[in-house]
């Protein structure tokens, strides 16, 4: 989502200045404050705090606000700063003293820890671990996933603090605050919609609010309800979950607008993934019947060219599938599957063409239609070509097959060569 460059991003402009303004996560914030304050009494057992949780819920902001609240000097490092051992050692010295030259106490933050990956970042994590073990000032680490196996050793030296998604009500409060400062009068329903859609990601909620409300005096529900799903890479995933587990027809039908693919492609996604979700046989039957009905309308559209019927295709492939679920409970994590037959179809197209051409050759010789020839004789030819180059060579001449056909029937290049050699 974009906005004119002359405006500052609201996420930055309205970033909480004090820890109290950070949305939700009261317990986590308290633990963080207590731990930082414990440094006053000397170096604690855990010299680093490890904050983890999904993106956009205020981990970094909390640390920044805390440093400001306690008037500490914050040294912030991002993944790009500590990719290698040397890079970490370059600022390791900072961590060896608690106080700064100007008497301020120091707080070191390693943000985006999951940013260090695999081979290129050799030694990075190890170097940080070494820094943590010897630290003379509080160090805060931040990552989305604290349980990444690469962080196992490091985790051992840290106080783990989990940050959770704040409830939608908390997010709404924050959005109201922002609206108040920006002079936007917003309906409660509109803010609620934005908050719910953001799924606890406060940063994305504020971004959405800016995109929708900037330059407006009033924000009403109609302004936001059309809004498509944030373009996340798992958009399809969410749309499918809605189709399989949604409860209201209206909401599920909107899946078509949310998905970033055309309805035919969405149909394929639903068709491919459906059986992995609706596992109860009766649910499966109802859902598949509904998809088949949607498909029936697609057929009618093809024949009649009456595109108005598309709305029924949408009804049955989305809401119809959702309403089919009676017994199946939402499954845990089910991996998303790419529509296999799309892949197969393109792979098979040339093969079908080849079969058809051989079928026509068979037809000329065997008093049989090309279609029946493909079905009834070609499979036996394949066995013969794979097994007996000499017999195959005779058939090559008799049927007048070309090289590509020989290779297709023989299966391998080596066998095709043997057949060709025997034939000519």
């Amino acid at each position, binding site marked *: 989502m974009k906005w004119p460059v002359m405006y500052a991003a609201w996420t930055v402009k309205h970033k909480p200045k004090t820890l109290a303004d950070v949305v939700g996560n009261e317990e986590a914030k308290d633990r963080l404050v207590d731990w930082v304050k414990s440094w006053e009494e000397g170096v604690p057992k855990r010299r680093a705090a490890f904050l983890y949780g999904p993106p956009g819920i205020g981990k970094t902001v909390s640390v920044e606000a805390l440093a400001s609240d306690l008037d500490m000097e914050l040294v912030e490092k991002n993944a790009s700063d500590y990719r290698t051992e040397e890079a970490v050692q370059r600022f390791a010295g900072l961590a060896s003293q608690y106080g700064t030259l100007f008497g301020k106490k120091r707080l070191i933050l390693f943000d985006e820890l999951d940013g260090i990956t695999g081979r290129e970042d050799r030694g990075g994590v190890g170097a940080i671990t070494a820094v943590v073990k010897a630290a003379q000032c509080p160090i805060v680490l931040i990552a989305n996933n604290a349980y990444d196996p690469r962080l196992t050793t490091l985790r051992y030296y840290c106080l783990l603090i989990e940050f959770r998604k704040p409830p939608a009500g908390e997010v709404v409060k924050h959005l109201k605050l922002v609206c108040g400062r920006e002079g936007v009068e917003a309906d409660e329903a509109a803010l609620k919609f934005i908050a719910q859609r953001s799924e606890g990601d406060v940063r994305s909620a504020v971004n959405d609010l800016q995109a929708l409300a900037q330059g407006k005096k009033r924000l009403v529900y109609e302004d936001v309800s059309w809004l498509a799903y944030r373009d996340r890479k798992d958009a399809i995933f969410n749309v499918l979950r809605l189709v399989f587990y949604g409860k209201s027809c209206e909401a599920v039908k909107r899946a078509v607008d949310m998905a970033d693919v055309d309805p035919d492609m969405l149909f394929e996604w639903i*068709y491919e993934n459906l*059986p*992995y979700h609706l596992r109860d*046989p*009766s649910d*499966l*039957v109802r*859902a*598949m*019947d509904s*998809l*088949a009905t949607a*498909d*029936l309308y*697609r*057929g*009618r559209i*093809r*024949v009649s060219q009456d595109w108005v019927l598309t709305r029924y295709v949408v009804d049955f492939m989305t809401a119809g599938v959702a309403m089919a679920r009676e017994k199946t409970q939402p499954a845990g994590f089910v991996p998303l599957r790419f529509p*296999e*037959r799309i892949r*197969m*179809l393109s792979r*098979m197209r040339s*093969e*079908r063409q080849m*079969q058809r051409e051989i079928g026509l050759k068979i*037809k000329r*010789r*065997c*008093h*049989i*239609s*090309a*279609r*029946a020839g*493909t*079905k*009834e*004789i070609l*499979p*036996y030819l*394949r*066995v*013969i070509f794979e*097994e*007996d180059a*000499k*017999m*195959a*060579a*005779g*058939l090559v*001449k*008799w049927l007048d097959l070309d090289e590509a056909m020989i290779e297709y029937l023989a299966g391998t290049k080596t066998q095709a060569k043997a057949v060709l050699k025997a034939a000519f």
Partner: protein
Amino acid sequence: MGFEMWAEKYRPKSLGDMVNQKEIVNRLKSFVEARNIPHCIFAGPPGTGKTTAALCLAHDLYGDVYREHLMELNASDERGINVVRETVKTFARIRTIGEIPFKIMILDEADNMTGDAQQALRRTMERFTETCRFILIANYSGKIIEPIQSRCAPFRFTYLPHEDHDAYLKRIARAEGVKLLEEGLNAVFEVCGGDLRRATNTLQAAASMGKPVDEDTVYSVIGRANPVDVREMLKLAVKGDFVGAREKLREMILKYGVAGSDIIRQIHIEVFRMKDVPEPWKIRLADAIGEVDFRLVQGADEEVQLSALLAHLVEAGAALK
């Protein structure tokens, strides 16, 4: 030794060479003696000699130049009404030169012709009876419209009995120098029923493996030539493995190009044979099958419709547990 498909190489050339379908052959022979034939329908399962009988009849009637008086058309490939209007009419109306005043048109796989095309054919048959006789070949005579049936002499072909099947394959094996064991022969009959084309193709493919043809060789050929079958797919569905059954279906349609209509016909037959489906469910399934059959004609997607049907089988299987 020249190689061709043995099914063609050993296809009888004259009615006298045909070892089976005795009654039919005798009646056809009497046509040859009379130097006249009516329009005919040859109906019966595949590989029972329908096309062969038609070709032999023409051969015996016209002698070695029979091809000049004959046209073979495959309704599966050209089944539209335009073919009947143009190709068939053009051929039928031109008088042939020779002792016999009519030509023969063989319409193979005629049960795949559309209704419209059959209606057009009916008029053509009437108008050009003087110059052309039609032999319609079909698996199911019921798919030929009534008015055509009533204008034709019907011939019903049946699967070959075990002895005739064995005699035919043994003759080929001897001529080709293939060692065909008794157990191999029985396996071929077991799998192919009395379908001689399939039996001959199986024998030839088995022979290409270069060892005596025993039971194992035969089953290995069958397995390789028919990698997926409907029964296997239905079994998976009834067991509750919808995804597995759908994969088989996909393979059949996309990889082996099996027509949806063929799959549905087989499903219809198999469902009634299945032991692990509760009896009352079978008729409910037949309803679902019929609906899908109809939808396919309306241009719906074969895989989607058929897999919806598989879901019904999953449900039927679950009802038994």
